[in-house]
């Protein structure tokens, strides 16, 4: 168990820059979720930590050790792959034991640790089966057990939930949190799914175009986005963005800035600004109301207006975020 730190890590593939000076720290025993759109460099980040890709610049530390130039096996990390990477020719038991067997641990130790890991993830029931006989969720458990069995300093999880159906994904998400609490290890979990990031992480790091945009607890990042990208990336539907002109009926903001307001902060209120309802989408208990002023409001489904209705909308100045138009950075006001 150890902290894990990246300092100024850069990685290029030919002409494209995958990581553009990444500084990031996962504290000891923390579950850090790295989230970003596809192609933002998050998988590369994980592969660099694991040593599967060599970094061009910068340093990687695990615990007190600098591991930047170490080969993957010497870093003492384990990884769970998006495709699970289970060996098709081995049984579940042998898959879990793989890391211990190649390190030639004594048979007794292997048996003990495999049993222990299988119990932790709930895989005791199918140890004799082979990967192709398992469901997605079961494969996921085996992959997790295989990562656990070696008791590494850090766990790296590369979109481990993305190949599961929606129901199993939610269930495995809960299991993953429980597992993290029981094992107490440092984990870095990469995903493109912002809901997963917000529900799972102790802290989350938002990555875009090879740069870390913001790191913080889910609460901090959601309610105080450091820049426009982070604000727009987290939350469903995405944050409304208003130019000074569009914002004028509601509130005056300086030129060269934009105003961000989350749909759930847009209220239908009698003393608001008149607007017309273009479209209404009902998503279970909530409804998304698309208005003609470039605004989306998220309201309880029960109180939703009809399409084509004339309504009045408004929001609290305190709920709105202000960003610099050019750099996208947050502006205090």
């Amino acid at each position: 168990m150890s902290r894990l730190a990246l300092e100024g890590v850069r990685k290029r593939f030919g002409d494209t820059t995958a990581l553009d000076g990444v500084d990031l720290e996962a504290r000891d025993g923390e579950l850090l979720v790295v989230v970003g759109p596809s192609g933002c460099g998050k998988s590369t980040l994980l592969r660099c930590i694991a040593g599967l890709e060599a970094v061009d610049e910068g340093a990687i530390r695990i615990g007190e050790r600098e591991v930047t130039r170490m080969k993957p096996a010497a870093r003492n990390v384990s990884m769970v792959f998006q495709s699970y990477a289970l060996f098709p020719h081995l049984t579940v038991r042998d898959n879990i034991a793989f890391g211990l067997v190649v390190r030639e641990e004594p048979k007794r130790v292997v048996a003990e640790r495999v049993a222990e890991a299988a119990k932790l993830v709930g895989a005791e029931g199918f140890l004799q089966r082979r990967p192709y006989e398992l469901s997605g969720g079961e494969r996921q458990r085996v992959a997790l057990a295989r990562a656990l069995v070696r008791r590494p300093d850090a766990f790296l999880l590369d979109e481990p939930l993305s190949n599961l159906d929606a129901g199993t994904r939610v269930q495995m998400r809960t299991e993953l949190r429980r597992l993290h609490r029981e094992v107490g290890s440092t984990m870095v979990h990469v995903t493109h799914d912002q809901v997963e990031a917000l529900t799972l992480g102790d802290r989350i790091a938002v990555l875009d175009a090879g740069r870390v945009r913001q790191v913080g607890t889910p609460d901090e990042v959601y309610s105080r986005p450091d820049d426009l990208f982070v604000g727009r990336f987290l939350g469903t539907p995405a944050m409304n963005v208003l130019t000074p002109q569009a914002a004028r009926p509601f509130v005056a903001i300086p030129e060269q800035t934009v105003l961000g307001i989350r749909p759930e902060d847009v209220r239908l209120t009698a003393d608001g600004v008149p607007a017309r309802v273009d479209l209404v989408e009902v998503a279970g208990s909530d409804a998304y109301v698309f208005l003609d002023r470039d605004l989306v409001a998220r309201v309880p489904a029960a109180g939703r207006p009809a399409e084509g209705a004339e309504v009045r909308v408004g929001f609290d100045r305190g709920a709105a975020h202000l960003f610099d138009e050019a750099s996208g950075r947050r502006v205090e006001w």
Partner: protein
Amino acid sequence: MTERRQVALMLAPYLFGLFALVGLPAVVTFGLAFTEYDLLRAPSFNGLDNFRELADDDIFATALKNSLVFALIAVPLRLAGALGLALLLHRRFTGVGAYRSSTVLPTVIPDVAYGLVWLWLFNPLYGPINLLLRWHGDSPTTTAWGVQPPQWLTHPNDARAAIILMSLFTIGEGFVILLVTRQGLPSELYDLAALEDATAWGIFRRITLPLMAPILLLLLARDTIFSLQWTFVPALVVTDGGPPPYATTYVPLFVYRNAFEYLRYGYAASATLVMFALTALIVWLQWRIVRRWRKGFAV
């Protein structure tokens, strides 16, 4: 025209070919094996006479032994060579395309032309191989380390070795198939092995080999069958079945000579049948062994 009939039409030529060129001849071979047939008179049934004669035929015994020894040595070497090349050349690095092409080139040379090249290479006096071996030799007829160089075309064992040596350069087909197979293996498995500190040998033994085993088995069976056919051209063109008496007479040559030179078609068919049964037996054994070996993969 209905869809179903169109599909049937698309299949028709192939099915006809399968029937007329493989199925029917296979059945006829089986039938002819129990007859005396010289093309002039109608085949006459003679029961197991052909097989009794084969059992006492020293030439057939020699041909059979030669074929089996060839298969036993050449097939594993060819397969290992193709696998080695595939593992060496499956990644992208400087000029890899040129290396891949070079290794496949000897395979595309027409058999007879290929045989003629080796007839030249193996010439004991001025063939490039022995010239190289005799280079800086003490006397014109010995190698640098004082022994006589191989007499490829006149000494029985040297001639058998020559045929095997020739066969080791024509492994392009197996190479390409194994190359594609290796490239199709998921790279995550290898990433994982790197994280787990598996050695190069460990990766080969625990991941690459078992995952490629089904294709390797298929190639093993195919190469075993074809190795018995492959010997025909070299034996005819390079060594002419000799050196005397029958050092490089393999079953295909035996069959060819009996059928088309001595006009004993029934006898040739029965020799084919024996060979085929033996091949089937070998392939079945390989299958059994590999299956047992794969079961032993519980790490």
